[in-house]
C-alpha cells in the first residue's frame, strides 16, 4: 500500500503493456582540457536511441565495451541525467500517442499550449524531470543489479543492512518486521537466515550477486536493470543465477533490461534484442529474428565472433580494427570503418583518411595540417610535395578500400597540399526489416549476397 500525502499524485501504475519508452536519448560527456578545464569536445556515449520495453519482457542490450550500453542502463535507471531526449515511465497508450505527437513537433514550432502540455507530461513521466512523488514512485519500481557485486555492496555493512536498506529508505518496515522481510527476500534468492549477520566479503561471487538481486527485489519493483549480472561469474554459477532470474520474473511479472556482452546469455534470456554500436542502435528486433536473420553486418560479425561448442563454422571470421573514438564518431554509418561489406554510400569522410594515415608508416608524421571545409571535404598539408603525392597515389591504389575509393569525388594535388572530397551522406537511419525488426544499414540482406 503506497500512501502519498502530498497533493501531487504520481502517475498511476497502469495496465498498458508498455513499461518504458526511450525517445531520442542522448548522453554526452564533456572532455575537459587544460588548467581552466575548458570543454574540448564531447564523448557521445549514447547518441539518439529510441525503443519501447514491454511489461514482463526481457530486453537484451548487447554491444562491445564502450558502445554505451551501460550509460544507457544508467539513464534508464535515473542514475545519470540524459543530455537530450528522455526515458518515459508508466505511460498509458493514449498518453504515449499524445506524447509521441508532441515530440514529433520540432521545439521551435510548438505553440504555448503544446509546450505546457508537454511540460506537464514530462513532469509526470520523464525520468529525469519527474516531480518529487513521481520520482519516488519510479525509484521504487526501477531497481538495478550491477556487474561487480564486490563494488556494489558496501563492505562495511551487514547483509541485513544491505538488503534492508531500500525498505528502510522507503519506510516500509523496521525492527523485527524488517528482519523478517529480509529473511523472506534472502529465501527467495536461495539464501537464508544464517546469512543475515555476515559481511559481503564472506560470500562467494555467486552469493554476492544473489544478495544484489535480493536488494533489488526488496521494494517489489516492476523493472530491474541488470547490468552484466553474470559476467564476473563461472558458468555453473551463471546458470544458477540465470535460472533464479527467470523464476523471479515468472513469479513477480518483472520486466528486465538485460545488459550483456555475452551473446549466448542474451539469447537465452531475452525476448527482444537491441544491438548497439558506438552509441547508436545498429539493429533491434525479436531474439530469434536477430539470431536467425541478422540484418546488420555488425550483428553478423558479433555472432560469428562468439565461440560456441559444436558450431559448424570453425573458422572464426574476425572484425578488423578497433572501435573508433566516440568523441569523433565516423559519419554516415558508424560501423563503416570496420565493415566487411562497406559501400561508397556508407559515409567515408576526412577522418577516415586521417585514421588511415595514422596506421601507415611515416605518413602521419609528415602531415602538418588538415583544413576542413566540411566533414567530407578537406585540404591535407604535408611537409613536402612528395608526401602529398604519395597520399594522392595511395588513395587511388589498393592500399585503401575499394568503397573508400568509390566515395572519393575529387583529388586535387597542389604542391605540398592535397584536397580530398568525398560524397556527403546523411546518418544511416533505422529501417524496417521485418515484424518489429529494424536495422541501420544501407544494404539489404540479399544485396550483401547472404
Amino acid at each position, binding site marked *: 500500500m503506497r500512501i502519498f500525502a502530498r497533493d501531487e499524485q504520481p502517475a498511476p501504475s497502469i495496465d498498458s503493456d508498455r513499461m518504458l519508452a526511450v525517445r531520442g536519448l542522448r548522453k554526452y560527456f564533456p572532455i575537459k582540457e587544460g588548467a581552466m578545464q575548458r570543454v574540448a569536445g564531447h564523448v557521445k556515449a549514447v547518441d539518439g536511441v529510441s525503443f519501447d520495453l514491454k511489461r514482463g519482457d526481457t530486453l537484451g542490450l548487447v554491444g562491445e565495451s564502450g558502445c554505451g550500453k551501460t550509460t544507457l542502463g544508467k539513464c534508464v535507471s535515473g542514475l545519470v541525467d540524459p543530455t537530450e531526449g528522455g526515458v518515459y515511465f508508466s505511460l498509458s497508450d493514449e498518453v504515449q500517442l499524445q506524447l509521441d505527437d508532441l515530440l514529433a513537433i520540432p521545439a521551435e514550432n510548438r505553440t504555448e499550449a503544446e509546450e505546457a502540455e508537454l511540460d506537464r507530461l514530462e513532469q509526470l513521466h520523464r525520468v529525469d524531470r519527474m516531480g518529487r512523488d513521481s520520482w519516488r514512485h519510479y525509484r521504487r519500481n526501477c531497481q538495478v543489479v550491477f556487474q561487480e557485486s564486490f563494488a556494489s555492496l558496501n563492505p562495511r555493512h551487514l547483509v541485513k543492512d544491505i538488503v534492508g536498506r531500500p525498505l528502510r529508505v522507503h519506510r516500509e518496515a523496521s525492527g523485527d518486521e524488517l528482519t523478517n522481510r529480509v529473511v523472506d527476500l534472502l529465501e527467495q534468492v536461495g539464501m537464508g537466515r544464517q546469512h543475515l549477520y555476515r559481511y559481503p566479503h564472506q560470500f562467494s*561471487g555467486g552469493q554476492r550477486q544473489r544478495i544484489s538481486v535480493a536488494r533489488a527485489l526488496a521494494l517489489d519493483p516492476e523493472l530491474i536493470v541488470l547490468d552484466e549480472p553474470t559476467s564476473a561469474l563461472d558458468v555453473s554459477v551463471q546458470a*544458477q543465477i540465470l535460472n533464479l532470474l527467470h523464476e523471479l520474473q515468472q513469479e513477480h511479472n518483472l520486466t528486465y533490461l538485460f545488459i550483456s556482452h555475452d551473446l*549466448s546469455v542474451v539469447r537465452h534470456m531475452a525476448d527482444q534484442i537491441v544491438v548497439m554500436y558506438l552509441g547508436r542502435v545498429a539493429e533491434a528486433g525479436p531474439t530469434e529474428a536477430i539470431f536467425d536473420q541478422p540484418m546488420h553486418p555488425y550483428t553478423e560479425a558479433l555472432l560469428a565472433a562468439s565461440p560456441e*561448442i559444436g558450431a559448424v563454422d570453425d573458422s572464426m571470421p574476425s*572484425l578488423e580494427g578497433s572501435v573508433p573514438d566516440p568523441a569523433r564518431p565516423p559519419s554516415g554509418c558508424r560501423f563503416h570503418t570496420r565493415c566487411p561489406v562497406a559501400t561508397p554510400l556508407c559515409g567515408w569522410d576526412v577522418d577516415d583518411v586521417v585514421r588511415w594515415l595514422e596506421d601507415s608508416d611515416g605518413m602521419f608524421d609528415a602531415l602538418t595540417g588538415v583544413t576542413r571545409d566540411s566533414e567530407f571535404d578537406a585540404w591535407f598539408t604535408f611537409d613536402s610535395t612528395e608526401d602529398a603525392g604519395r597520399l594522392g597515389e595511395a588513395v587511388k591504389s589498393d592500399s585503401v578500400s575499394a568503397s573508400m575509393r568509390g566515395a572519393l569525388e575529387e583529388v586535387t594535388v597542389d604542391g605540398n597540399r592535397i584536397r580530398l572530397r568525398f560524397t556527403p551522406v546523411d546518418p544511416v537511419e533505422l529501417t524496417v526489416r521485418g515484424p518489429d525488426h529494424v536495422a541501420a544499414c544501407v544494404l539489404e540482406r540479399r544485396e550483401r549476397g547472404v
Partner: protein
Amino acid sequence: MTVATDDMVVPSRAGAAVASVVDLRVHFRSKAGIVHAVDGVSFDIKDGETLGLVGETGCGKTVTARSFLGLVPTPPGIIAGGSILFRSHQACPSCGGAGCDRCTETGQHTVDLLDIPESEMRAIRGDRIAMVFQDPGKALNPALSIRAQVAEVFYQHRWRELLADAGIDEDDRSIASSLIRRKARDLSRWPEDILLSLPPLRAKRNRLRTVTRARVADALAETQIANPKKLMERYPHELSGGMRQRVMIAQALACDPDLLIADEPTTALDVTVQARILDLVKELQERHRTSVLYISHDLSLVSKVCDRVAVMYAGRIVETAATDVIFSDPRHPYTRGLLAAIPAASHERGKLVGISGTVPELIDPPAMCRFAGRCPYEAELCRTTDPMPASAGEDHEVACFIHDAPPGATGLPSFDLRVR
C-alpha cells in the same frame, strides 16, 4: 647461461612432452589452516600442442601455471611436492644432445622447474617459457613505454645478439666495450649513461639503440600491429585492450619460447577482439612450433583453440582427453555439469542445468572425492575414498569410481555413457 644458436637445437621426438607435471602440490598457509590449492596434479604438454586447462574460479589453474615459472610467492605458498620436468629444444649441456641420464636419453636440456636456482630460472623465464597474463592493463608497467618493456626481454636474454647486430665484439675487453656491454644488459647506472652520451661512445650506443628498436619493431609487427614504430613510443594507457594484449603476446614470443603459458588471455576483451587474438595465437603457434598451455574458464573457447583439454576441479585434474572427446563423450560428472551449464540455443529458459552447491573449502581436505556433495552420481564409496585418474579410453583419463571401481565395490550408480 645458455644461449640458443641454431646448431644446438635438438629436434624433439614425435609425441615427446615438452613439459611433464608429476604430482604437483602447492599449498598456502592461511589463518584457518593449510589450503591445498593444487593437490596432486599430473599432466603432460606434448611438443607443439595446445593443452587447455579448464576449471572454475579457485580450482588452482592459475597457481599451477605460475608454479611453472616460480611465480608462486613463498611464503605464504608452499611447494609441497611433485616436479615439473621441462625439456627445452636446446641440447643437454652435459651430453651435447647425444642422450644421457640427466636428460633421460632425449638429448634435450631437461630441468625440474621446481628444483633449480633462481639464476637458472631467470634464464628460462621469458626465454624458453613465456607467459601471457589475464589483464594486460595490469601486467604492463604504466610508467614505461611499450618499447622499453619489450626491449627488456632482449636485454635480459638476447644481449649477445644485440651486440653482434650492433657490430660490437663481445670479447673486446676495453672499457668502452664493457660500458656498451653493460648497456646491452640494461645494467647501466646514470654515470655510465652520461659517459655513453659523450662523443667517443655515442656512435656505438646509438648503434645498439637502433638494433634494439629494430628488434622491438619486428617483435611487434609479428602480432600484426600496424605501424609498430609509432606504437612502441606510446604508453600502455594509450592503447586499447586488444592492442595491449598484442603487446603482451609480442613480448612473450620475442625470444621464440618452447612453451607459452596463456592465463585467460582474452577474458578481459570483447568477443570481436577475442576472436582476433585467438587467431593470432594460433597462427604464431604454428609458425614458431610453440607448445601452449591455455588456461581458461570458458569451455566454448577451449573447444576452439585446444588440441587436448584437462579439466580441473578443487586442486585436482578430474578428466583429460582430446578436445573433441571431452565435448562429445565427457565421462566425469563435473565435466558434464560444466558443459550443461553453458546456455545454448536449445535450452529452455530457466532450465539451465547448473551444478548445485559451491566449490568446497580446500583447507585440509579429507580423503574423498572432491566433487562429492555436488555430484548427482554420488555413492558411499565417494565419501570415503579418493578416486585416482584412470584410463577410460585412448588418451582419456578420468578420476571417477564410475569408470574405475575398486574390486568389490558396491552401490555405484550406473552411468549412461551415451547421455550428453
